[in-house]
């Protein structure tokens, strides 16, 4: 299936196309006589979305001298559109960190505190309100994803429009928003600490192509190796220290 990662059925809100993907896979059960790989012949009808999207909300120029205030301005600006999306879709994907949508200000506090150098071991005091469901530092990764979900759901609110491609969304966030600037600042803070599992986590926050100082994962952390290496990285990112 020649679709972007994260879209195994091809495209949202297109039941005919999704059903075609399913039928094609299921028919192999009736025709295959041995383990079989088959290509799905159709492209996603949105052409994978590249270049068809532009943000319809005018965002202020990010003020990198005060990232927390800049983040809060963006959240305030996007809030009506986020609420509209949540209402029209009947759902939100915020909640990965444990925060509720009503606690988005605390998510901003956590991300801003990490960007401004409060470290990655403890939950910043200013962000203690939500019932977080991950320990630091991995909590930061999911807080970032909650904030991204807030932004993405806000700017894709207009019904009838195609969602942006992943690359278009990354480009908008990292080149035009204070959120992107905060994430890059976090990337630099991680580089200052220099721990290998933290560099791995940077690869969970900043996609390749949007980090300027080499691979976002660092040079040696992409594959933690066998069970022991994975166990070490998992424990470290779950906040367990020897």
């Amino acid at each position, binding site marked *: 299936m020649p679709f972007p990662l994260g879209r195994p059925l091809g495209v949202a809100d297109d039941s005919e196309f999704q059903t075609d993907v399913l039928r094609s896979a299921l028919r192999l059960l009736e025709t295959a006589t041995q383990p079989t790989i088959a290509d799905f012949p159709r492209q996603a009808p949105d052409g994978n979305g590249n270049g068809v999207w532009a943000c319809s909300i005018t965002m202020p120029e990010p003020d990198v001298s005060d990232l927390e205030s800049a983040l809060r301005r963006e959240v305030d600006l996007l809030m009506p559109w986020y609420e509209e999306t949540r209402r029209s879709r009947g759902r939100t994907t915020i909640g990965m960190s444990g925060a509720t949508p009503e606690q988005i200000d605390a998510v901003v506090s956590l991300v801003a505190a990490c960007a401004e150098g409060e470290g990655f071991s403890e939950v910043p005091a200013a962000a203690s309100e939500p019932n977080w469901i991950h320990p630091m530092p*991995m909590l930061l990764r999911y807080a970032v994803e909650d904030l*991204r979900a807030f932004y993405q759901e806000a700017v894709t609110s207009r019904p009838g429009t195609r969602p942006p491609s992943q690359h278009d969304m990354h480009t908008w966030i990292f080149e035009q928003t204070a959120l992107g600037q905060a994430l890059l600042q976090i990337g630099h803070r991680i580089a200052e600490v220099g721990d290998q599992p933290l560099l791995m986590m940077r690869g969970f926050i900043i*996609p390749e192509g949007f980090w300027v100082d080499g691979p976002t994962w660092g040079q040696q952390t992409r594959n933690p190796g066998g069970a022991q290496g994975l166990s070490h990285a998992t424990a470290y990112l779950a906040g367990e220290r020897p």
Partner: protein
Amino acid sequence: MVLLSELHPEEAQHMRNMGERFAQMPLDDTPFVTPPPLAEATIALITSAGLHRRDDRPFRFGDQGYRIIPNDVDPADLVQTQVSVNFDRTHYQRDVNVVLPLDRMRELAQAGEIGAVSEWHYSVLGSNPNPYLLKDAAADLAQRMRDSGVDCAMLTPV
């Protein structure tokens, strides 16, 4: 599966490296089972999207377990604690069927194209640098599906 030509070169190389590592992982054999006719088959979904119910345990990086998703789950009750930044979430945010095609499966069952949809579906965390560590969970999951009358599993890789 995305075309490697559409990935950033670092990501494409990572995929190639992972593919080479996976090819070296031991498989005892390549079993093949002939399922019942589709119109009689009960089918479950297994996604690597890291989806789970909001009150379920979140996935951890390297998580070696699975989560259970009931067929009648409210999509608003699902969250996705996937660690990777390298996949498109905007379509999932809009329509859960692009990852977990619950509505499409029900439609196929109602049309008689498949026998039934399983009462339960399953989710794992796909961004696992050593998927061989999921072997025990996979065996347990297979037994659970067999016990609940599932004939076939549809994998939706994320």
